[in-house]
């Protein structure tokens, strides 16, 4: 039941809430980053800039949405998913199929594919939720491998397009700059929604399930219901990212859209930023894309007579980063770094 009066009050409060938020360290920093992201496309009309550099940022935004969706499910709700590529991939495929073979408009396709992802979240979440902890992790991993293998299967290629997948899709928008802004808006929306959810009473309930499911049950919470909500919400945003990704790449194929490596990326990015923070997922995604790009750019480095190809080593480096973070920095590295900065900031302002 919606209480209109309260909603109205909240609406009036909102600008002042926003004003005080902007003055906080996180607020100022967020606004600063968003401003930079906003003006960046106008910095240069140079082709290589828009086609290479800007595209990397667009990719980071897609992954930010994806990683945040994983963080909602695993970081906030404690349901370990090792198969997040399921939602990402299924949505990408549906989107590609609708556009290519049913000539649906892009936006309708994205909406439908996201809804299908939610449906998968429900269909997979419901039976798998009986599993706890590591079992759920392997259950979701198994599910994603089933899908991967089904899509790779030659005998099903007539229906699922085989290892070739679907290619030659239209882009999300006419130019990389427009694409960039569309993703920018959706990223902001995603993060506003997910952060609000994590701070809400609903979020508190999800966190209680993560911390102690039995205790949550004993507090009168229908934990199954809330876990399914978490699965559906998470698959919604993972699906959204997956649809964008299909159009961003312009093609879908089994390993590119269902690969275990995508689930691994989501885990890595969210852990880099700091689990259960949501906003950490964005930091992690940008850092991750930057690092990947940098490693490929650095390419082959010769040390003495040893040639090291960093582009080739990137996955190994990511794996080491993940291990080190989980082992030594359970709060990620980017969020704590920002907190140190905040202390410095407060010191400078004499707060």
């Amino acid at each position, binding site marked *: 039941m919606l209480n209109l009066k309260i909603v109205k009050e909240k609406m009036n409060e909102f600008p002042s809430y926003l004003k005080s938020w902007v003055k906080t360290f996180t607020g100022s920093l967020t606004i600063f980053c968003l401003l930079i992201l906003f003006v960046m496309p106008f910095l240069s009309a140079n082709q290589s800039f828009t086609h290479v550099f800007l595209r990397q940022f667009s990719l980071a935004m897609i992954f930010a949405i994806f990683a945040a969706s994983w963080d909602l499910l695993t970081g906030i709700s404690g349901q370990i998913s090792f198969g997040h590529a399921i939602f990402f991939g299924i949505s990408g495929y549906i989107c590609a199929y609708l556009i290519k073979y049913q000539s649906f408009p892009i936006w309708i396709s994205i909406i439908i594919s996201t809804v299908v992802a939610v449906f998968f979240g429900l269909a997979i979440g419901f039976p798998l939720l009986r599993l706890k*902890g590591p079992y759920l992790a392997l259950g979701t991993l198994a*599910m994603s491998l089933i899908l991967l293998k089904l899509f790779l299967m030659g005998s099903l290629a007539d229906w699922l397009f085989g290892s070739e997948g679907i290619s030659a899709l239209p882009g999300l928008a006419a130019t990389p700059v427009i694409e960039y802004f569309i993703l920018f808006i959706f990223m902001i929306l995603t993060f506003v929604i997910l952060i609000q959810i994590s701070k809400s009473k609903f979020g508190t309930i999800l966190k209680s399930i993560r911390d102690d499911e039995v205790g949550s049950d004993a507090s009168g919470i229908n934990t199954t219901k809330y876990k399914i909500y978490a699965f559906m919400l998470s698959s919604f945003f993972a699906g959204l990212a997956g649809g964008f990704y299909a159009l961003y790449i312009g093609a879908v194929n089994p390993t590119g859209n269902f690969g275990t490596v995508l689930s691994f990326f989501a885990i890595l990015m969210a852990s880099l930023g700091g689990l259960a923070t949501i906003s950490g997922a964005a930091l992690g995604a940008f850092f991750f894309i930057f690092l990947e790009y940098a490693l490929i750019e650095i390419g082959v480095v010769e040390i003495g007579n040893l040639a090291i190809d960093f582009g080739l080593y990137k996955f*190994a480096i990511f794996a080491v980063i*993940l291990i080190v973070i989980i082992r030594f920095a*359970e709060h990620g590295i980017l969020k704590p770094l920002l907190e140190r900065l905040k202390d410095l900031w407060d010191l400078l302002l004499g707060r």
Partner: protein
Amino acid sequence: MIVDIMNMLFNGTLTGAVYALIAMGYSLVYGVGGIMNLSHGAYFMLTGYLLLWMLQTPFFIGLEWLTVVFALIIITVIGGLTFLLLVKPLQDSHVAVVIVTFGLAFLLEQVVLISPSGTEVWSIGQLRLFQGYTMVFGYPIVHQYVFLIVMSIVIVLLFALFINKSKLGKSIRAVSQDREAAGLMGINASRILLYTVMISALLAGLAAFLYLPGASLDGPSMGWGYLLNSFAVVILGGMGSLIGSVAGAFIVGYTISFTNVFVPYGPSWAHLVPIIIIIVILLIRPQGLFGKKELR
């Protein structure tokens, strides 16, 4: 027809024998310490490549048997290090253990992938103890595989003997039944867990040494398949149950070989069989066919 049946029976037994070795350790580690070690499949894969790399080194020409000894020692040490460096400090958190061992498996895969031998299919046939095959009802029975099956049975029996009779085995059982009580009896649970993980890595290494010379190294990502299939085996048999692991291994083995031989497009569906077993068992009987433990 008889050829098909022979094919199914022999390959089922073979697959079962391999997975009995791999899954036994995997299950033991979970049963004793509640540790879900996702690097377990990577141990198997890495042993194969360790053997390959050593065989490619001129030093080992004529000393092929030394490569086996070294590879098994190295993989056992890697198992021990996994526990000491990564698992032990994180034991309180299931999420962390799962993620960190997932990361390690991924790392081992990548390390092999970027090595010069990463992207091709290799044979380590030099290590076959038995060459050739015998036709039985028109189906070629490979001698090396017969050796494997026999060895696997011997190792399983020795292992059961070890767990039930030896002092270390008894300590392992004590820790798995009640960690605190074992602590009170003066058993150092942490050390026992360390040994358990090392033993499990050794068993995975043994499986690789017995199986891979007769087959091939199909690329570093093969570890995931073995991990998932072992998971199917222990899910079927019940986490922590040794008899369950062995029984589960053969059930999975025969199911795979049946699919391979008798189902249309069998070989591609056979990949899916273990995963489907996992999902179905998890949903209808989460404690496994032979297990009693609750999933908590």
